[in-house]
């Protein structure tokens, strides 16, 4: 479980996060909804101390991420997969190398075991056979799927999605939403989805929080759409 307590962040005079508090319980997906430019990505990155908050606390399974050393943060981050809005794939690596990087860095798996794991991940994200392609040969949607694949490599407990469906065509958007739902339902991945798309929020979220003017409010009524 991740507990976010009174998280605050300002850039000069602009208050982006104002004492934000909420919990991410196991096997649940929290959606942070809000218009563009309200600080959703800042919130996501502050939870992981990628953008350090000015005040507040984030407790990952009992450990406060704001009062531990850098090596300890890295240990916590191994439990988190992050899907970036722009995918953030390594340009110089192909799909296989992008997904296998965390495995090479953090595990002692043999190349055969890594290959087996990557094939399984490619199957989950629906990109089997694309492992030799480089990011410049992938569409925006495919890049984001690879980003999910890379996030899954270490089999993390939590997945953070930053605008996973923004800018995608309707078919790819539905595919992405179905994948997020599948990962939560069948692989028990809890986490946060940041989006400004109400349809996506309704489809994937167990709980929807609205971020506006630095404050967060819970949306009480969520009508679920069925995907997959």
């Amino acid at each position: 479980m991740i507990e976010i307590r009174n998280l605050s962040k300002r850039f000069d005079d602009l208050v982006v996060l104002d004492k934000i508090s909420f919990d991410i319980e196991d096997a649940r997906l929290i959606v942070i909804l809000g218009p563009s430019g309200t600080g959703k990505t800042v919130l996501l990155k502050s939870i992981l101390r990628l953008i350090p908050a000015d005040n507040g606390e984030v407790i990952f399974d009992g450990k406060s991420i704001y009062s531990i050393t850098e090596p300890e943060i890295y240990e916590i981050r191994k439990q988190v997969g992050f899907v970036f809005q722009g995918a953030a794939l390594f340009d110089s690596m192909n799909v296989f190398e992008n997904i296998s990087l965390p495995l090479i860095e953090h595990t002692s798996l043999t190349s055969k075991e890594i290959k087996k794991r990557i094939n399984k991940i490619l199957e989950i994200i629906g990109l089997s056979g694309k492992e030799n392609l480089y990011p410049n040969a992938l569409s925006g949607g495919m890049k984001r799927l690879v980003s999910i694949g890379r996030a899954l490599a270490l089999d993390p407990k939590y997945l953070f999605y930053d605008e996973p469906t923004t800018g995608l065509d309707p078919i790819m958007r539905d595919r992405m939403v179905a994948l997020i739902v599948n990962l939560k339902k069948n692989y028990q991945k809890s986490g946060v989805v940041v989006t400004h798309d109400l349809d996506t929020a309704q489809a994937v979220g167990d709980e929807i929080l609205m971020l506006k003017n630095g404050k967060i409010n819970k949306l009480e009524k969520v009508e679920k759409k069925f995907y997959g």
Partner: protein
Amino acid sequence: MNLFRHVADFATFFFRSILIPWHLGTTGPRILAQIYDIGFGSLPIIIVISAFLGLVSTVQLSYQLLGIIPRYFLGAAVGRMVLIELGPILTALMVSGRSASSMSAEVGTMRVTEQIDALEIMAIDPYRFLCFPRIVGTFISLPLLTVIAEFVAIFFGALYAHIFLDVPFNVFNYGLIHNFYRRDLFGGLLKSLLFSLVIATSGCYFGFRVKGGAREVGMSTTYAVVTSCILILVLDFIVALVVFE
């Protein structure tokens, strides 16, 4: 005050990048890739420039000295000038122009496209992943390039003297060998080792600090090259005072 802060930041960045636990299995291949890129990648341009460096040095020295001093002294003058000063400095400036800029552009682009954030999220220290291999790769490559550059420059100097100045190879070599001091060679190599550290650190440091987009990436490459060139000349002066004074 700002300058002191930048110097402190630069020094902190350097030590943060090199004093880091690393594993040969994962970091070794990246160091080799950098040696290949910086070393082999720079080799053609270094050979061309060193050849002309040797030719120009010989033309200039013969113009100033022949007729005043014995002919064999041309070999000594060209050799010592190349080993002590021109070889290390010009090689470092060339590698700075080629590699510090590309490092800064690459790391800067990774910064603005969130690839460095992705490394952080994957619990991969970006200093170890990006900076350490580049610094070590340059540290290994630059002295080797310098030795090659010195050899090429002296060879072309001797060739020019042989063909156009009526100074045979054996006479040129006599001056070269009888005025060879190990301190010249090792002083020059010491310089290139120090230069390598500022080239790679500048490239990575300015890349890491990029905020914004393409314009800022472009500016970071300029800062990286200008800073490394200035630091190369400052270090050159310091080593000259310490080793050769």
